[in-house]
Every structure is written in C-alpha cells, then in structure tokens.
C-alpha cells in the first residue's frame, strides 16, 4: 500500500516472522516490474532478520537476487543482537563504480575516439582467464592490498593522494584482516588485480550531456561536454570465494545462535560473534581489493588516454569511487537515539547528505556523489545525497534488470546490437557478442524513471547526465 504523505513509497505490512515492514521506493511505472518477480518476497524475507531496524528497504532499481534482493538495504542494531549476512552484501563484495573526468571535451577528442577505444580495448583485461594489470609477486603482496586497498595501490605508484581523497573511506575500509581470508580466496585473487571480469561489468567512455546543478557539478569536477570514464567492477574471484566460504560457515553456526532464516542464502550470525567479526574482517579485505582493482584500472585508463590523445589528456581526475555491495558499521539516529548499525547495501549506493562528517572537505557542502550507470547505450547519472538521508542514506545503483539473460538473448542478437550501438555513435569493444546481447538496454529498467523516482522519493538528486560514446565490455 502507498505510504501517505510520501511520493513513490510503498509499504509491505509485517506479517508472520517479519520484524519490520518492507518499504519499496517505486513509481507507478516501476511498480508492476517490481511486483512481477521474486524481489518483493525477498524484501519480506530480509525483514525477518534478527536485529533489523526501521524497515527492509528496496531501491527503485530493485530486482530478483538471492537471499537479499538486488537493490536492498537493511540495517541491524549491533548492540541489540543485530546480525551480519554475507547474502546482504552479495558475492561480488565491494562491486562498485568510479568516475574519472578527463581534461578534454568531446570536440577535442573528435576522430581520435576510435584510437582511444582501440587502446582501451587492448589494455583493459576482461572476460575469461585474462589476468590483471597489476602483477603481484606473491601472497604477501596480495595481503598488503587486502589491508591497504586503493592506498596500497597508490603507494605502489598506481595513484595519487588526490585519488584517495575522492574514494569512499579514503580508499581503505578499516578493520580488514587478511588472516580471515581463506587460501582459496587468496589463490583466486592473486592474478586478477586490475581486471574487469565479465557479466555486467564495463568501462565506458562517456560525455557530460546535461548539467542539472552547475555548482555541485563543478565541485565534483564535472562540466558540460567533458569526456569521462566510468568503471564498474568489483573484487573478482576473491570476493566471491569469501562470500561462499562465510555463507557455509554461517549456515553451520546459525543454530548456535538460535537463528533461523527463510532462505539459506540469508545465513547470518550476530555482528558481535566470532563468526561475525571474521566475516566483517574478510569482507573489508575484499572491499579493499575491489578498490585497489578499480585504482589499478584507473592508471591503465590514464595511460590509454595519454597514448591516444597526447600526454596532457592522461591526467584524468577521480570524481568519486563508491561501492554498492557492502555492509558497513555506521551510526544512525533510530527513534531519537544514536545507534551503531550494520548497514547492508546490496546493489544500493551510500548517499551521504551535505554536511556529513565522513565527506572530504571539498565535497561536504554538496553531498556525496552517487554514481548510477545506466544500461549499455543509455545515459548514466551523477546524483548527490540529500538531507535527511532516507534509508540510512542510500540510493539506487543502476537501472536494474527487468529481463533475464535468456530473454535478452531471445530478443537481441549481439552482432545486431553492436551495429546499433556503433550507428548511434558508441564504439564497442566486447569480449563476447552473446555477453553483449545479454546486457542489451532492453533487458533493463528505464534509467530515467529510476533516477526520477530516486529524486521524488527523496533519496538523491540529479547533478549531471552522461551519455556513452565508447564501451569496453567485460
């Protein structure tokens, strides 16, 4: 039922084992897509988790996941038996987006775009068994990455202090402990630092098509017609293995804490338990890996720009780097008192409002950049957080799928899609035509509607719109 007095906000009343209501942010246009699939059942399942406070939230781009819906936000009260669930983070821990702003406009790039795309197509590792651009000699070097994140990359010459200032948490999530990461996860992660992977991961060259808030855009480092690069990837095999390992451990441990869950992928334990601490330390290590991964790809991107467009074009500035699959310990006001919460965002972006103390000085007056990639070939958005910071200061993370990969393949042929994108001025470098078809724009919700819903629902507001001119597809 709609929540009176609030736009685009729907409430699922608690029934059965639900401890809190479900709250879905969706416009009338998006609601039928949300209601058709399993996502709402998953929103209700999350509402049963021990220690959950306020509500089980669903962002406007919510869709069917496993355990949690993708686009789900849930917080538990750490000092009141609140749990942490690897299913509330997802397999790809710290999957996220970073946006780089180039010192060139679309007009200045001109015909050199093809040369730039060819260079990026060759140098950005992606797809199957590709390795990464940062070659770590051994597990000891990997452990430094796990505990140092993007800062470890910068210390190795792959980045600057300016980059770190524009990373969530300064590029390093505290509390990481490489000793909590299993041998199989380490083995999977050793040779993948600096690689996109596959699926919906990508590197896009974009241009700022519309500036909605020039003052905030300028503070973020963005202006009309500027060329940008958006990178979407995560913690690769290492993060997935950590998720798998800890779900298995928690499935066995739950009984000791008298926890039952409606879905095995919601396996969880109290944050204040040995298993909970172990997961959070390993998850933080994976988060740091994800940030180092995107940092390493940034350096490769800068080199490609310099090579294709001239040395000065290589000085791309980081606008922001934010994870959209993470659980974080944060303080929030609950019923008038400040509580320490474990905030799970699975396919949802933290969206700190203006004035928040965790923002770097130069961004604090404007709020946190929220990077929202659209589907391939359509617009992406830069939003910013707004007061008061609904849903524990969270917003959407993308367009959100609406069509299965199978269905996309029935509707779209990869070669045809490639031609269509090229005809509309988007250079495509894909590792697989079938993979390209599975990520066709038709398979996703309308990004314009998702962003407009975020705005009407008071989750974030628009700063700038970007359109793609080149896609390197994982």
């Amino acid at each position, binding site marked *: 039922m709609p929540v009176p007095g609030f736009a685009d906000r729907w409430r699922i009343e608690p029934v059965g084992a639900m401890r809190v209501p479900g709250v879905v942010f969706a416009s009338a246009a998006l609601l039928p897509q949300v209601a058709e*699939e399993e996502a709402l059942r998953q929103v209700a399942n999350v509402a049963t988790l021990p220690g959950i406070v306020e509500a089980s939230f669903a962002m406007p781009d919510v*869709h*069917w*996941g*496993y*355990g949690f819906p*993708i686009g789900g936000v849930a917080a538990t009260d750490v000092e009141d038996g609140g749990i942490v669930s690897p*299913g509330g983070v997802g*397999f*790809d821990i710290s999957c996220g987006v970073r946006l780089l702003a180039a010192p060139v406009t679309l007009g200045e790039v001109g015909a050199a775009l093809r040369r730039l795309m060819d260079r990026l197509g060759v140098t950005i590792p992606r*797809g*199957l*068994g590709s390795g990464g651009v940062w070659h770590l000699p051994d597990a000891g070097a990997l452990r430094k990455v796990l505990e140092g994140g993007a800062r470890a990359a910068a210390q190795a010459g792959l980045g600057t202090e300016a980059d770190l200032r524009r990373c969530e948490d300064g590029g390093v999530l505290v509390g990481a402990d490489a000793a909590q990461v299993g041998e*199989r996860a380490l*083995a*999977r992660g050793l040779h*993948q630092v600096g690689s996109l*992977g*596959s*699926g*919906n991961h990508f590197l896009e060259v974009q241009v700022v098509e519309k500036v909605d808030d020039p003052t905030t855009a300028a503070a973020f480092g963005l202006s009309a017609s500027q060329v940008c690069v958006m990178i979407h990837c995560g913690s*690769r*095999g290492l993060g*997935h*293995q950590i*998720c*798998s390992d800890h*779900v*298995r451990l928690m*499935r066995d441990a739950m009984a000791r804490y008298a926890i039952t869950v409606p*879905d*095995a*992928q919601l*396996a969880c334990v109290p944050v204040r338990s040995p298993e909970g601490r172990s997961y959070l330390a390993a998850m933080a290590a994976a988060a740091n890996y994800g940030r180092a991964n995107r940092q390493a790809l940034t350096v490769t991107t800068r080199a490609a720009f310099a090579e294709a467009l001239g040395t000065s074009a290589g000085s791309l500035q980081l606008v922001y780097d934010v994870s959209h699959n993470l659980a974080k310990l944060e303080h929030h006001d609950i019923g008038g008192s400040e509580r320490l919460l474990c905030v799970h965002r699975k396919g949802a972006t933290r969206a700190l409002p203006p004035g928040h103390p965790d923002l770097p000085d130069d961004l604090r007056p404007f709020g946190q950049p929220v990077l929202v990639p659209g589907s391939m070939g359509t617009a992406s958005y830069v939003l910013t957080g707004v007061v008061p910071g609904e849903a524990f200061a969270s917003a959407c993370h993308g367009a959100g*799928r*609406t*069509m*299965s*990969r*199978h*269905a996309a393949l029935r509707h779209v042929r990869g070669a045809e899609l490639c031609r269509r994108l090229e005809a509309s001025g988007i250079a495509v470098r894909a*590792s*697989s035509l*079938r*993979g390209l078809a*599975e990520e066709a724009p038709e398979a996703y919700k309308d990004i314009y509607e998702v962003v407009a819903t975020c705005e009407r629902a008071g989750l974030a507001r628009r700063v700038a719109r970007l359109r793609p001119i080149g896609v390197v597809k994982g």
Partner: protein
Amino acid sequence: MATVHRSGDAGAATQEPPRGHRLVPHTADCIVESWGPDLPVCLVEALGGLVGSFAEVPDTATSRVLPLAASSGGAEDAVVTLLEEVIYVLDVFSVVPVRFHLEETEDGGLAGDMEVVRADEVRLIGPVPKGISYHDLSIGPVDGGWRCHVLVDV
C-alpha cells in the same frame, strides 16, 4: 562411473532423456537444472550445464586431468562444492573443465576427476560464473532418478 555428455535443451523435447541439463532464466544470473538416474550422473550433468552456460568447448584433446571430490556432507553441499571447483580452476589455473567423471565413495562422499582445456582454447559465449548460491538450491531423488536446481552467480 558417471561421465558427462553434452546435452541440448532437453526442455524442448517432448520426452525427457534419462539424463541431461538445461539453463533456466533468472533475472540477473543463471539457473542450472540437471537430472540423471543417480546422484553422480545428476551432478556430472550439472557440471556440464555450468560449463555450457559460458563456454563453447573445442573437440581438441584435453591438456590435464584434475581431481574432483566432495566430502560426505550431503547432496546440497556436494553440488556447491563441485560446481565451485570449476570456478576455482578457471580463476586459478585458467583452465576450463570439459569432461567430468564421478563416483560415490565408500564413506558417502564423491570422488573423480575432470579433464580440462586451456581457457584460451574455448569460445566465451556467456558471462563467466563466479559463485554458487544456496538460494532455492534443491537436489534430491525424484521419480526414481535425481534432480538438481542451482543458481549460479555471474
């Protein structure tokens, strides 16, 4: 010993063959369903389905044989363990398993091996699997055979 045979989309057939696998739509990821007369065959088919979801394998000779095993922790854990092994060797050794052999051990576990080819010998036809989910996982005896339904994160 159960050995994989690559099967087409058995869902399109009027009568289901005694063993096989198929891919079932999921919004963001991939679901593998398999079936067979016994647990090892059902698992071997699930493994074949997983590989078929992302790789078109050549008919060239395989380069290595790697061990494959699951302890006696139950069928659910076995399917997750075995499918994860495919993902593991893909990430760590850059190889793609193309043929699987499995049999039950005396202590109730499963043991066998998988023949692999180098990853650069296969054609990538879909998103690479990265994790195996327990969400809606089911495996067990049905109508005199075994059936498995497992969600793969891609």
